[in-house]
């Protein structure tokens, strides 16, 4: 494996991209989960599907698109989708969650049309849907690095505001934090992370890398910083182990990454249950001793 990693550029691209998205996807995912926006990541990844399928279809029709990396159009459509979701959440103030099925079905609808219109981009599309070890180019890696700098910079500089808005949006508003502007940037950043992650995890599974490690982390963490560290640790473990498994079994890494994330989640839930039972036992023991 190490030999192959040193010899093949595509493997280096896949592993370096994987290590980076193993950090940024759960990092941003924590803010998405605690703000109860987990389904938004799903909606945006399906909008990215429309962009990817559109780009693959256009590459068969127009010369310009044949030379264009489909990831660009995927990211552009996810960013557009994120802005549309924000707009719709404002329009349906009392039914904010409506924005998600509207945008999600629009994404799948457009994706289905482009896939039906085109003739034979099966293997390319499978790679985008479920991720790929072999398809990550050096250009894809540079896109991932650029997006990671933007995401980590945004979270580093706006950490206080993001925490305040996530914990208690009403209080944040009263205390004069510019929630609206930060929310719009946050949505765009989410779309960028989905764009960066889809080459490795795949469009259909990208939201799971943003949510499942976080679901495991909040079972164990007492503090927000702790939840952040656990999320990254679990996300990174799932990506690296998932990529290694996918390489040896010659299968799509999206599936292995998600299943390893689920195993980590089950272990975290089991650990929490055992810990709670032990605590309850200790309290009971103390009480009976006191009595």
């Amino acid at each position: 494996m190490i030999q192959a990693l040193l010899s093949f550029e595509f493997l280096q691209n896949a592993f370096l991209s994987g290590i980076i998205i193993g950090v940024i996807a759960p990092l941003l995912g924590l803010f998405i989960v605690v703000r109860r926006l987990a389904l938004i990541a799903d909606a945006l990844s399906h909008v990215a599907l429309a962009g990817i399928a559109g780009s693959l279809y256009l590459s068969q029709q127009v010369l310009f698109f044949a030379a264009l990396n489909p990831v660009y159009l995927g990211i552009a459509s996810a960013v557009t989708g994120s802005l549309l979701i924000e707009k719709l959440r404002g329009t349906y103030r009392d039914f904010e969650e409506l924005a998600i099925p509207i945008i999600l079905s629009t994404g799948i609808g457009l994706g289905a049309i482009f896939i039906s219109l085109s003739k034979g981009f099966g293997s390319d599309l499978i790679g985008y849907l479920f991720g790929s070890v072999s398809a990550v180019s050096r250009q894809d890696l540079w896109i991932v690095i650029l997006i990671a700098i933007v995401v980590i910079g945004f979270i580093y500089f706006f950490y206080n505001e993001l925490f305040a808005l996530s914990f208690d949006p009403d209080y944040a508003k009263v205390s004069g934090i510019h929630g609206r502007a930060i929310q719009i940037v946050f949505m765009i950043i989410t779309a960028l992370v989905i764009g960066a992650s889809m080459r490795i995890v795949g469009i259909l599974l990208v939201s799971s890398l943003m949510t499942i490690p976080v679901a495991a982390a909040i079972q164990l963490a007492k503090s927000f910083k702790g939840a952040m560290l656990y999320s990254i640790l679990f996300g990174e473990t799932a990506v690296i182990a998932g990529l290694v498994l996918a390489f040896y079994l010659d299968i799509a890494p999206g599936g292995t990454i998600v299943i390893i994330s689920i195993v980590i989640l089950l272990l975290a839930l089991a650990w929490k249950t055992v810990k709670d039972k032990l605590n309850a036992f200790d309290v009971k023991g103390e009480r009976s001793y006191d009595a």
Partner: protein
Amino acid sequence: MDNTIIQLEDVSFSYEHSSVLEHISFRVNKGEFWALIGPNGSGKSTLLKIVLGLLKPSEGQVKLFNTDLDIFKQRERIGFVSQKANSFNSGFPATVLEVVRSGLTRKKGLFKRFTKKDEDRAMYALGIVGMEPFAYQSIGELSGGQQQRVFIARALVSKPDLLIMDEPTVGIDQQNVASFYSMLNTLNREYGIAIVLVTHEIDLVTDLATHVACLNRSMHFHGVQSDYKKLDDVDISKWYGHPVRRVHQQTSEVTE
């Protein structure tokens, strides 16, 4: 030196065509403890939202610290504790210290990280409300009364001159309400923080507050506590729209 903190001049507010507040004028000065009482739907929370800048009055003028509300920027001088604080997501992974420190976000400004000094300030605020020993505990593990103390610490951490509270004792068991109010009394007397408290717990608060305002769409009474106690029950019942009886210097609503 002018000690005025809140100044409302002839403020009215209506939702579409229904009038909620009519010609409200009153003033809160430094160091005062106001109990804002009135029946359900009397416009108490709406009045607070106007003072906090969340709603714009249909008519009239609002000034905070002698500055027109539209151009008032020093939000950190006002601490706010809502009645909804009890209904936050209790599974949120955050320590008490992280929650309290978040009260400094606006004061720190954009692109700034919290320092050790900010942490010390948060610990100090926790000390004021008697919650210092819980600093590293998860916020979701605390009782409703303890959580509300933490939210007061979050409001206090930016060293505000004014604390606004909208029914902060909702969800706190009756046993802890008295000690909660005694803590507010300490904040007002020892730390000189002006308090405006909207409440239904009129028995305890009207004894603690230095001033009482009785609102039911319009301001029926506002003045010092001793004048409030001299009022006739018949008048208060008329303002409330149903019988109100005060017993032994305490006020209680008669439910029928």
